[in-house]
């Protein structure tokens, strides 16, 4: 495995998929408006929750906004990379074109996870960062090096967990062929990530920490931003992210043994 080769291949991926996606320019504009509206809608929903209460699950409105910002960034990343690629897996398997991917002298997981890119997701990431900077201002957060490293670590762990979840479900396509709706289920569960974990009842909190670690994805990074996080939580997130990454890799290699092309 050499890094330079993969970097070069990735550059080619970027080039081809950007070229094909930029064919649909109005589409990108529509997607941008969608991203903005959905953020406005979520903040509207939050404001309903807060209209007669100062705190929800121990979070103030300004603090809960940070969760929205991080969710928007992660959702942008999902729309840029995970969604377009991993829905492609379904197509590869149904039409049997996964054969061509497997025959290439390149890691198959690398190929199917990074082949495509959807530029309209970038805009969502930018919107998310803008909101995040605004939140940093509102909440008067001091930017220093240790804080930056910690937030970077937790956000990258969130990205890893999110990727593994998506990849996990897409991999099951090898057995079930159509997993489009399983992805919808994941999407609707991820929606919970827009709200602080503490605002849910105890049983749901357990469910969202153990079975589907949505709690780790947005709440822990937001706590880091607010300086509320404790070290063991961050360590736990790193461990969970590592376990998820390794398992999703193992699961992919395991699933490939059952792949038998289309109509065979």
């Amino acid at each position, binding site marked *: 495995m050499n890094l330079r080769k993969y970097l070069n291949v990735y550059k080619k991926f970027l080039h081809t998929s950007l070229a094909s996606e930029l064919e*649909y320019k*109005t*589409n990108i504009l*529509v*997607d941008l*408006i*969608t991203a903005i*509206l*959905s953020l406005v*809608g*979520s903040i*509207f*929903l939050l*404001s*309903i*929750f807060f*209209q*007669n*209460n100062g705190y*929800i*699950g121990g979070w103030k409105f300004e603090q809960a906004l940070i969760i929205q910002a991080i969710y928007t960034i992660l959702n942008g990343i999902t729309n840029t990379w995970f969604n377009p690629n991993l829905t492609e897996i379904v197509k590869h398997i149904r039409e049997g074109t996964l054969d061509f991917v497997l025959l290439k002298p390149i890691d198959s997981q690398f190929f199917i996870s990074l082949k495509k890119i959807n530029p309209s997701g970038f805009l969502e990431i930018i919107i998310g960062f803008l909101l995040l900077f605004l939140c940093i201002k509102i909440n008067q957060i001091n930017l220093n090096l240790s804080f930056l490293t910690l937030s970077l670590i937790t956000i990258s762990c969130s990205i890893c967990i999110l990727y593994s979840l998506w990849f996990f479900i897409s991999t099951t396509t090898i057995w*079930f062929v*159509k997993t*489009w*709706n*399983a992805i*919808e*289920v994941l*999407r*609707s569960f991820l*929606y*919970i990530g827009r*709200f602080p974990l503490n*605002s*849910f*009842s105890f049983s*749901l909190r357990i469910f969202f920490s153990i079975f589907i670690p949505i709690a780790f994805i947005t709440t822990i990074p937001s706590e880091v931003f607010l300086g509320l996080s404790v070290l063991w939580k961050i360590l736990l997130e790193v461990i969970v992210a590592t376990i998820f990454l390794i398992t999703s890799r193992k699961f992919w290699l395991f699933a490939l043994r059952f792949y038998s092309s289309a109509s065979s």
Partner: protein
Amino acid sequence: MISNLINRKISTLLKVQYSNMLEYRVEIALWAISGIIPFFMLNIWTTNNLNESINISDVLLSRYFLCAFFVRQFSVVWVVFSFEEDSLMGKVSPYLIQPLNPFFRYFAQHIAEQITRFPFALIIAFFFFIFNPESIWIPNLSTLLLSIVSTFLSFLIQFLIQSIVACLCFWTEKASSIERLLFIPTLFLSGLLAPVVSFPQYVKSWIYMTPFPYLIDFPANLLSGNETNIIGGLSMQILWIILLLPLFKKIWSEGTKKYTAMGS
């Protein structure tokens, strides 16, 4: 004679689509699960005692969200996505030759899917009652019938709106992104995530002029026994259908004139 023929067409379409849908039981079950967001929202409302500020008791609120779940289950529309795929694949051409508007085919598909979905929705409701036994209630027959009618009207409104968007496929290749844009106000303003009563005054003053509250909030209030204006709601639903139907007919006839099969 003519009505007999129409009846035969309808029953054949329904039978074909129903047996087709039964093939995808697991998919439909998953799809039913992906609609449980209202329950998560209910959890936020009750855990944080947010309902006190809008004068709705716990029990009525949980019934509201259960009904919102049901109404949503039976008013989900995906005609844009089917039509977009069919028109990109060139399947629309043979449909256009047939003496039947292809949208009847999609309509039958949706109805058949709802019939298939019904048992799964009941199972989810059953689990909901296990966790919230105090919210069990039996609506009286007239309320039940009225809410079935209004749910169907809500489905019709959404079906018409989406069909209009689907007809944009004749002009642009990716009409589904416009649908995703329209879905955002539907999600936040229809009452799926928060009952419209809880909205701030500056939204309540204009929202009843839009079709959104009649999609979920009105039928759900009706079914759950919350206070609502039955005659006003039903007449607004019918009004929107009367407004949208000619628009659909117009755009359909314009679009089919414009239609050129792929590759021509």
